């Protein structure tokens, strides 16, 4: 028991300690003098990036361009856009520092790195990394964000919920209230119980063979991910909903029947409203499982590098747990804290979902 708790606490603390760094980024002061630009660098990428690199070299000597993040020019561009008067004078702007500086500033490192940090200290600062929550994946850890993966996860979950919850609840109602006892319903029960215990990777294989192979749906799309995860969560929702329906007192059914309600009216007017909290709790817990699921999504190709938000159900996308897996494979040291930060976001989302389910259940139990 204590060991289990110790593991949990150790896991959470390790990830929290590393992940906090992911939300903060180190900035470096960069004097920009637009007057030195012979012809003002346009907002286009390469020219602006070259100009900003040159400014870094002027300020910090040769090698200065390696101190700032690859995405520093975007910060300069956005500042210029926000305040066009800056384009005519000299100003100092704090741009994101490169991964090496970021790591050395946060954790220390080799003596050489520490010496460099000591030299640069007056110019360095920290700020909340808003880009992490609003940006998409990138090859440079200082620019990588989780918004794209988060959106992919949301789209996938939307498909999963829309398909799995109505079907699962309908199946549960049929099995609990209408099904005759015969070989067919036995077969349905056996297959539901087995599906609930099958490894998730098998559902990935099914999605690959059925949705991508036979039906020819687009690879890496949230639609396919949602369909696959819907099949995976369906048995869980059916089992939870059946439990909730079974929990409704038989006297309620008999009373409704007694005043002349038809079987369908009994179910939809009297049993379902009472079973609803239990059904919804099951749906939430099923969603939480699906949200943390990675393996089936890997198999249907949601592991591509996507440097933008998907925006549609059929465009390639990635999901939050897959993003965590992809980042954990990166060699760049800057991705370690990004991975932990993404895990914090994922765990926070799961905790929220489970918390809602627990509070709901407690409230219903109190009323009952």
């Amino acid at each position, binding site marked *: 028991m204590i060991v*289990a708790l110790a593991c*949990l606490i150790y896991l959470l603390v390790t990830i929290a300690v590393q992940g906090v760094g992911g939300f903060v980024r180190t900035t470096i002061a960069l004097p920009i003098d637009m007057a030195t630009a012979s012809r003002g660098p346009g907002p286009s990428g390469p020219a602006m990036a070259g100009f900003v690199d040159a400014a870094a070299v002027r300020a910090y000597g040769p090698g200065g361009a390696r101190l700032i993040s690859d995405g520093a020019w975007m910060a300069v561009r956005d500042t210029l856009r926000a305040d066009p008067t800056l384009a005519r004078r000299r100003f100092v702007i704090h741009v994101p520092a490169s991964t090496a500086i970021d790591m050395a500033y946060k954790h220390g490192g080799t003596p050489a790195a520490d010496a460099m940090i000591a030299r640069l200290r007056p110019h360095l600062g920290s700020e909340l990394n808003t880009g992490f929550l609003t940006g998409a994946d990138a090859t440079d850890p200082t620019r990588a964000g989780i918004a794209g993966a988060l959106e992919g996860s949301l789209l996938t979950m939307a498909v999963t919920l829309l398909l799995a919850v109505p079907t699962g609840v309908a199946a549960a*109602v049929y099995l609990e209230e209408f099904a005759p006892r015969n070989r067919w319903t036995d077969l349905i029960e056996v297959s539901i119980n087995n599906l609930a215990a099958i*490894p998730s*990777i098998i559902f990935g294989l*099914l999605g690959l*063979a059925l949705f991508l192979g036979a039906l020819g749906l687009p690879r890496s799309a949230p639609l396919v991910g949602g369909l696959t995860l819907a099949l995976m969560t369906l048995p869980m929702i059916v089992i939870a909903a059946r439990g909730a329906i079974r929990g409704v007192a038989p006297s309620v059914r008999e009373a409704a029947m007694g005043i002349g309600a038809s079987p369908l009216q009994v179910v939809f007017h009297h049993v379902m409203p009472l079973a609803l909290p239990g059904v919804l709790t099951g749906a939430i817990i099923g969603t939480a499982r699906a949200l943390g699921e990675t393996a089936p999504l890997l198999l249907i190709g949601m592991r591509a590098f996507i440097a933008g938000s998907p925006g549609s159900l059929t465009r390639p996308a990635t999901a939050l747990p897959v993003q965590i897996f992809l980042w954990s494979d990166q060699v760049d040291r800057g991705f370690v804290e990004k991975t932990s930060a993404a895990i914090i976001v994922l765990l926070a989302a799961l905790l929220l979902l489970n918390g809602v389910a627990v509070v709901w259940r407690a409230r219903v139990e109190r009323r009952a």
Partner: protein
Amino acid sequence: MAGITLLVLLIGLASIFWQLARARAVQFRRAVRFGSLPAQHGWTVALWAVLPALALLVVWQIAAPALVTDAVLRTPAAADLPPPGFARATLLSQARALATGHGAESVEPLSRRLAPAYAAATRRSHWIATVAVLALAIGAGAAALARVRAGTPARTRVERLVTALLFAASLVAILTTAGILFSLVWESGRFFATVPAQRFLFGTHWSPQSIVDDAPGDVLGALPLFWGTFFIGAVIAMAVAVPLGLLSAIYLSQYAAGSTRRLLKPALEVLAGVPTVVYGYFGALTVAPAVRRLGMALGMADASSESAMAAGLVMGVMILPFVSSIADDSLIAVPVELGEASLALGATTSETVRQVLLPAALPGVAGGVLLAISRAVGETMIVVMVASAVATLSVNPFASATTVTRQIIDLLTGEATFDSPKTLAAFALGLTLFVVTLALNIAALALVRRHRVRGG
């Protein structure tokens, strides 16, 4: 998204029909005796308007891609296409990508010429589908509306219809099982047509990277994978999870005070709810290097940073809450009289647990352990991130090891085509995994059921 607009239109139509039918039925209600409520008339008509149209939409969605391709092939530009085969399929899929706006960078000129034809055919297909679906909805709805009379048994009709829908929903589970079985058996059948089954099951050499086309069976012997899976999932992980899970269950159910229990139970549930990718990351980052250092300290030169030990330890922690909660349930299911009788005879709590409660709960616990093994065997992300990709047959826990699930992921996330022996091998591995987990689950359920019957 044309599909979503169409769905919204259909729902709008259905609600209009619902209102119309209800209004008509309200009229009869004033005049004569009636057999059904107005709303039931409404539902009958609305369902008649929506269901056939939805069925048509689904059929069209499945048939449309082939029809569109046919239309494109009849255009003059398609005469230059190579004969059916891989090159032709590539050209067509490039043209399709261009037409839908996901233009790739390097595109054959022929695809570029075909793209407008694709776009036109797709647009035409969309229009036909929209018109046909809406016409069917309006037609079927109007026909149903015309049949709304005082004597129409709308109540029985709508109830029969809804019951049929509920039944259809419960069929999805069977269809999923059938789909899994069919796709696994079908692809594995094609695999075993090229590689003999006994070669695959008992071969000891696994290295799909060095596959040769004329003798793929030489490097696809899966025995090392089965051993690695068994070693990590059933031996090391269980060595961690079973004792700890059992002890924590005994503590929770017998010794812990009510308040402690209320605090610790949710903590275990949190541990069970952590996604496996998080465990995998944790394992790769901290556990695997620590295990490697331990192996080095014990004097093993070949201690790997992708060892079976590390994967098994992390997996054991992952599975611990599951074992604990099943053991807890089995202990609680033991009739209270047994424990109380033992205590009344003067046995201490620990004697009662060891000599009375545990033996009584044993079948349930054993069933739980089987279920836990089935989970550990099917667990993917931990082994993908912690275990090794190289298949070795070794009983040294500090040596590298690989598992079935890890290899499925590795085989299917390359850029291989869908029909290569590599992808088919992944399906054969999947089939083996499916059969093994199914057998474990059935055995576990049988054990638990017998336990329950005997326990009263």
